[in-house]
């Protein structure tokens, strides 16, 4: 019980910290924030339930007024921007990612990458696109068109999340609870 609580809290803090540390640069020189990778890692490492709870905890603190989103954003205003759908999709993305890693017992690196891709890209973008279409008063295909530019970056993040999860499983074997 204490361990679950500590893991959920520390991974919520990890998502926040990933938004605070300077952006890192991908091979093509595209700077990206690692925050959405934190959401994927919550699912792949903590599993469905704990991962989703960690993300919910993170969002609750954002809503309470802490500037924890990438770029120092936060507060209730974060839920009043066109990208609100992505925030609402975060916990669902972590849950789906975790569920896949828990159920699909194959090589961890590839399963975690595919799970991150399904949860952190497919599911997350479904929420994000619906949110954007509502907030900007555009049709779903039009809204989808607006976010396509960000998909390659998130696909790369999903693959990296798979590699990182496998690395964690090697260095802290008891900690990858999704396979516990």
């Amino acid at each position, binding site marked *: *019980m*204490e*361990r679950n*609580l*500590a*893991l*959920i*809290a*520390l*991974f*919520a*803090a*990890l998502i*926040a*910290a*990933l938004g*605070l*540390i*300077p952006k*890192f*640069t*991908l091979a093509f020189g595209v700077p990206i924030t*690692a925050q959405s*990778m934190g959401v994927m*890692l919550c699912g792949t*490492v903590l599993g469905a339930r704990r991962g989703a709870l960690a993300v919910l*905890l*993170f969002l*609750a*603190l954002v809503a*309470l*007024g*802490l*500037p*924890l989103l990438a*770029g120092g*954003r*936060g*507060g*209730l*205003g974060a*839920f*009043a*921007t*066109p990208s609100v759908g992505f925030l609402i999709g975060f916990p669902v993305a972590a849950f789906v990612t975790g569920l896949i890693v828990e159920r699909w017992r194959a090589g961890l690196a590839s399963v975690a990458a595919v799970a991150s891709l399904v949860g952190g890209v497919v599911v997350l973008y479904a929420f994000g696109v619906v949110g954007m279409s509502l*907030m*900007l*008063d*555009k049709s779903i295909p039009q809204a989808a068109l*607006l976010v396509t530019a960000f998909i390659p970056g998130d696909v790369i993040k999903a693959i*990296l999340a798979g*590699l*990182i999860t496998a*690395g*964690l499983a090697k*260095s*802290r074997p008891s*900690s990858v609870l999704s396979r516990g």
Partner: protein
Amino acid sequence: MISLTSPVETWAHRVPAGVKLAALSVTTVGLLALQSPGALALALAGVVGLTLTGGPSFARAAAHALKILLPFLLLIAVWHGVTGQIEAGMTVALRLLAALALANFVTMTTRLSDMVAVAAVLLAPFRRLGLSTRALELSVALVVRFTPSIARKGGLLAEAWRARSARRTGWQIIMPLAATALDDADHVAEALRARGGLETTEPTD
């Protein structure tokens, strides 16, 4: 950790947080229902007026927080400029600005402790049902305590990377960062257990 509450003390700081949050919810629903650009322009003017009551430096900080909408506003301008649906574009842009400015106003004028107090009131029904909210309160405190610590470790990892490599900091630092978070979690769990854990029964009120 620095919260987004404005250090400039305004009259709105003294309004109970629950009242502000309720008003914000009702107004935001109202903004979503409004369809005419004229009415929305009026609403935005109202929010701007509200923000200006906080004084110039408060208003400047509030305006700065709206910058996040810039790419979206540009997009709307181009999109609706091309399609010629200027009125629809105005409606969307005004609604976005008014809703975000109002939400930011509430966040800027409400202390974190007041927000937490409202959250505690909202969670009271769960306590009544016998569920402990202690775990939640504890985890909120843990996140606030550990976010700067993990961010600092991330900074150190990035520095170590720069000291050894000519290339820019890569994604590779995230694995050790997540590992330190896992280690911290183990230590925290041990410390919690050593102090009686979560099972301690508190006096019910």
